[in-house]
């Protein structure tokens, strides 16, 4: 098909070019770590010891970030036509992740690392003011229902964003008067536990963070491009991989933003004398199928470029990012506006190490530890 193009990581146009270099403090931190022979890592103790056992040394925590504006562009389709990829958005989301990861890679190179393990790609959507307000709006609604306000009062419909503060504040002051309390902030206006900063609509932060490692031997573990490898493997997984004769060569990823027009989402309604039947929404299925295949195909291309023999730990995730027009009636709104979905696939490309054919022996054990307890105390015992 014609739209099977790989997303190039090329720069997207903007009024300001992407920030090119690492911040000054990053250079300072890395220089100090090298001078004073200090390592930092975000690995647990077990992971830290296993990485050492595998013949690697931790060098330092490395990170990269990119704050990106992704503008929703809903394609204009003829009525009845199938869904399509939104190529501009695919490119933007790919570019954002690529920027974050290449900055992390730059830090690892400056530290002299062979690779980065335990990489986490964090997508921070909390910059959207509407998303923030929506949480508080729901919190207020729950409180109001508890106090006995009927739903027709609390359901503000499509204009909730501009009106809810006034209604909620009125109810809260009334409540305070009734309870004989002095004026005080309402529970939903207290700062939330997690970070929240209204950066602006459609602004998303992409962050990559991991631990740079270096092999103790003379052998270089850098990949074909001469860059440190990246992988999202935990210390345990990394140890197992190295001990069974494989080495990671890099992160590979593929994504695809797909638009499913509303007519594909509508179930067939019955006629006057016939009832609606349960049936497959074949257009929708086909759209999602296509999107997933596109994303995986792009991942495969990246793996081929690294001359990998396989990709492990592939995960497929579906995001619906912050480009929904409004948070009202999120589920049903799709029936009129259509749906915009991002399929994101990521995995670690591996190659066999020459001359290594150690076989890992596994042992069956009964575990006497309480699993819940292990989770509560964060000890990664599994």
């Amino acid at each position, binding site marked *: 098909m014609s739209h099977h193009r790989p997303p190039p990581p090329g720069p*997207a146009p903007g009024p300001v070019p992407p920030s090119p270099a690492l911040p000054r403090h990053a250079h*300072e*931190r890395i220089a100090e770590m090298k001078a004073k022979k*200090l390592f930092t890592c975000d690995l647990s103790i077990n992971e830290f010891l296993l990485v050492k056992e595998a013949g690697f040394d931790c060098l330092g925590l490395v990170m990269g970030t990119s704050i990106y504006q992704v503008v929703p562009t809903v394609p204009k389709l003829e009525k009845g036509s199938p869904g399509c990829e939104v190529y501009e958005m695919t490119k933007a989301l790919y570019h954002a992740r690529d920027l974050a990861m290449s*900055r992390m890679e730059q830090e690892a190179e400056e530290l002299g690392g062979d690779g980065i393990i335990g990489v986490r790609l964090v997508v921070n959507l909390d910059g959207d003011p509407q998303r*923030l307000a929506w949480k508080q709006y729901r919190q207020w609604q729950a409180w109001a229902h508890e106090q006995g306000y009927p739903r027709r009062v609390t359901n503000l419909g499509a204009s909730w964003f501009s009106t809810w503060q006034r209604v909620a504040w009125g109810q809260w002051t009334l409540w305070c008067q009734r309870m004989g309390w*002095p004026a005080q902030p309402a529970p939903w206006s207290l700062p939330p536990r997690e970070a929240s900063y*209204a*950066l602006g609509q459609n602004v998303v932060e992409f962050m990559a963070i991991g631990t740079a490692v270096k092999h103790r031997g003379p052998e270089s573990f850098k990949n074909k491009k001469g860059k440190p490898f990246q992988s999202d493997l935990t210390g345990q997984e990394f140890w197992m991989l190295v001990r069974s004769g494989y080495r990671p060569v890099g992160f590979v990823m593929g994504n695809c933003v797909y638009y499913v027009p509303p007519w594909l989402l509508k179930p067939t309604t019955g006629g006057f004398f016939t009832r609606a039947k349960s049936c497959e929404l074949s257009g929708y299925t086909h759209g999602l199928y296509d999107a997933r295949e596109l994303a995986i195909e792009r991942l495969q291309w990246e793996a081929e470029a690294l001359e990998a023999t396989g990709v492990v730990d592939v995960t497929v995730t579906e995001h619906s990012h912050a480009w929904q027009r409004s948070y009202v009636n999120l589920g049903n709104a799709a029936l009129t506006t259509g749906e915009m979905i991002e399929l994101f696939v990521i995995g670690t490309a591996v190659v066999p190490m020459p001359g290594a054919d150690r076989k890992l022996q596994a042992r069956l054990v009964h575990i006497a530890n309480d699993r819940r307890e292990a989770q509560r105390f964060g000890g990664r015992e599994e």
Partner: protein
Amino acid sequence: MTTAQRPVPALSDLSVTEFLTLSRMGFLPHGLVVGASVYEADTSASGAQIDLWGALFGNAPLVRPVQTEEVVALSEAVRAARMLAIERMRMQAAAVNAEGVVGVRLDVEHHLWRGNHQVVKFVAVGTAIGFDHAHGPEEIRGAPTLRLANGAPFTSDLSGQDFVALLQAGYRPVTVASGTCVYQLNLQELGRYQGYNCEIAEYTRAFFDARETAMARLQYDLFSWWPVGHPDAPTGIVGMTVSETAHRPQLMGPARNAVVAGSMAPVVEFTAVGTAITPLAPGDPRRAKTTVKPLVVVPLDR
């Protein structure tokens, strides 16, 4: 708080596994120790600044608009409050004659008090442990103390198992280390990016720089207390995380709409936390004679 050599009923928040792992290495809990500090986040240091002096005698504008930059006053306040909480916990541990504290949790709570005071409470909680020379295993009875060179107990956010694994691998924890950087963001910047699919370079730089500064400060503080060559000089930091919390200038009532709509600068605090470690004293019998061989196991419990 008792100061007996080995208080028998000592509180601890250890799990059974942690307790048994520690007691096998001769460590017993000496009590739950807590340090807290409360401070008021004065957000007036952030936002637009009026510079009367500069306007009259210098070339500066009267009102300096919000800039994307660090709020140094807030950074300093948060750093001092955190250090104080950890230091108080350490003092409590010293009072129960402990060698150190394991399982430290650093909790931050934001409150909005009357009069629109934004108050932040830092709490450090952990279990003080001590080495029992009389009841410890035969071969490690003569082990030297794990206290720091100045006699203060160590602190760490490691669990009991992690602590023992670390000792056997030949390292000891020194302290819970933290670094802070508070940044404010200029929201006017977004206007330039209307309608583009692109990176917002100024914000990226701000967030990147803030996280890096937090981590750099953590290192700087550590080495200013224990410079290279000191017996407690750290060789590494394990379990380091960088987290963020937001102090938004809070307004009461419908005026809050202005905050949500973004006319006030958000203030974001970045915090790096980890445990600094250093090698055990040479000849410490706790170091495992042979390196522990990892085993691949298939658990049968699911």
